[in-house]
């Protein structure tokens, strides 16, 4: 089973604002009124007629704004699921159609009931004018919404990534088991205990400096190697790790704390639960403009796996990749009956000097 996942449309990541709330309606009314004032000010008005002109324009623009909100409110879910670009294009087209239809209705209504000439313009001219003005206003609004939603999304993603990095850092099982190992080694092999304390400190330091930044593959692999050394003390011959990484460009950048947590997963959910242990295989290669890193491990067959923990680390990495590379990177999981493999693919970039 190959599951390729992109970030979901959870509420925090919605790009279209929710027009169904009272607050949104007030904002729409305000904006509509401002547009009405702007239009009236810009028009050549006969002195003393300003308020009347404003009333006429407001009536039209408010109808447009409120009906537009209703449409967006009703179809939001369906638009969201269509994807970002399509959602904005479809919203724009739908709102434009609504404008033209409303303009037509307004024109017909004033022609039938209006004794005085409310709309002092030819039919075609009126429709075209409405179309042009509304296009600009709607396009501007869309752009504004798009930018602000992107900004909101990146803030949320970053916060989530920070939190899960923190959680990953303090995986208690690892920390306490390592401490127990060190307590044991201080008697049987003080020298090794010394090294273990140094390694553990380096690892914690790397974790504390956070996952918000990018680091070189060289540094990232060093952190993973330190982690491996600590686990090796605990698991002995049960753990072996094969590093097929000679083809990796060591200067390539990678979001920090990517490989170590995946290695941790491979050990925690895989090797540790096998009575005779097993081998984790880390393979890295360069594929044109991309770097591909695969981490594969055996798992105990038929054992109920604690999928939750696994999922959290995976989601964390997916989010951080999405944040760092948009959709130019991918995280693929291949879960077999007795094996587990995760494949990272991300653009090859170097630090500009």
């Amino acid at each position, binding site marked *: 089973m190959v599951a390729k996942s992109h970030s979901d449309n959870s509420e925090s990541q919605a790009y279209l604002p929710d027009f169904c709330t009272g607050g949104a309606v007030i904002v729409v009314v305000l904006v509509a009124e401002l547009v009405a004032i702007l239009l009236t000010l810009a028009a050549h008005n006969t002195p003393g007629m300003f308020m009347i002109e404003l009333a006429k324009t407001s009536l039209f623009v408010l109808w447009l704004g409120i009906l537009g909100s209703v449409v967006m409110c009703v179809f939001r879910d369906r638009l969201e699921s269509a994807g970002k670009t399509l959602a904005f294009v479809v919203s724009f087209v739908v709102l434009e159609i609504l404008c033209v239809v409303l303009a037509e209705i307004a024109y017909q209504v004033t022609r039938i009931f209006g004794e005085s000439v409310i709309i002092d313009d030819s039919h075609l001219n009126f429709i075209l004018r409405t179309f042009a003005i509304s296009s600009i206003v709607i396009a501007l609004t869309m752009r504004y919404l798009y930018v602000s939603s992107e900004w909101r999304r990146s803030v949320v993603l970053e916060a989530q990534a920070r939190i899960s990095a923190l959680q990953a850092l303090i995986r208690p*099982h690892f920390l306490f*088991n390592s401490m*127990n190992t060190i*307590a*044991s*080694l201080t008697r049987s092999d003080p020298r090794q205990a010394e090294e273990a304390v140094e390694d553990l400190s380096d690892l914690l330091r790397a974790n504390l400096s956070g996952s918000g930044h990018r680091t070189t593959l060289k540094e990232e692999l060093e952190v993973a190697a330190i982690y491996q050394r600590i686990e090796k003390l605990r698991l002995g011959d049960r753990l072996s790790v094969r590093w097929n990484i000679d083809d990796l460009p060591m200067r390539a950048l990678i979001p920090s704390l990517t490989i170590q947590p995946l290695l941790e997963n491979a050990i925690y959910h895989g090797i*540790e639960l096998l*009575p005779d242990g097993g081998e984790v295989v880390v393979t890295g290669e360069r594929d044109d403009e991309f770097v591909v890193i695969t981490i594969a491990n055996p798992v*105990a067959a038929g054992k109920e796996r604690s999928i939750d923990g696994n999922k959290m680390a995976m989601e964390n990495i997916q989010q951080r990749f999405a944040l760092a590379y948009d959709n130019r990177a991918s995280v693929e999981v291949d879960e077999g009956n007795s094996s587990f493999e995760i494949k990272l693919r991300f653009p090859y970039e170097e630090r500009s000097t």
Partner: protein
Amino acid sequence: MKVLIVDDEKPARDRLRQLIADFGSHEVIAEATNGQQALSMAAANSPDVVLLDIRMPGIDGIETAHHLNSMESPPAVVFTTAYDEYAIDAFEARAIGYVLKPVRRERLEKALEHAARVTGKMLKQLASESKFQSRRQHVCARVQGELRLIPIDSVSFFIADQKYVTVHHSDGQDLIDDSLKSLEDEFADDFVRIHRGALVAVDQIDRLQKNDDGKIRVVLRQDSLADGDELIISRRHLTDVRKRLKGG
């Protein structure tokens, strides 16, 4: 007291042994690296206390404790674990103690002292109260004083015969101590009762067959047809069996 240490990690076993050697009042009689080994060592050496790691490959510590509890004279169980997410399971297993890693000298000493005060009678009482929340992966048979674990996946059916329950599995058949009722409760998802004294693994059933005398019996996938009489479905359970076979 005779102590059995069970942990899959060597440094963790070493630490416990060092600390117990320091106390001077207890004796480590054996070390096991997994649950399976722990059970056969416990049967062979009858320890007073088992220091049992929870997260281990194969049969984990919680399941091991439940199998230990089914012994004739169960040992006192003290869990050792790095993280207290298993506290409830440990409580359900009626453990005597619970020591967090890194293991503190005083904590371990206290737990062992406490275990020493508990009498065999109390242990037996506690063991009979223990409940296993999640489904076991194995059932435990006793063959000439030794414990044998039978993976539940390899079991085709259980037959209750007066006092004992016989488990029929891919490597033969054994007597076990569990009651048919408790087995039915625990493995309700995978087993179906076909008459008052028989539980059959649903995925081992090949088809139902009508005998010449009009009785309907279960035909297993690997059926010797020798167990014919034991696998006749009683009228009371027939609808239920049919429903389960349809995938209900």
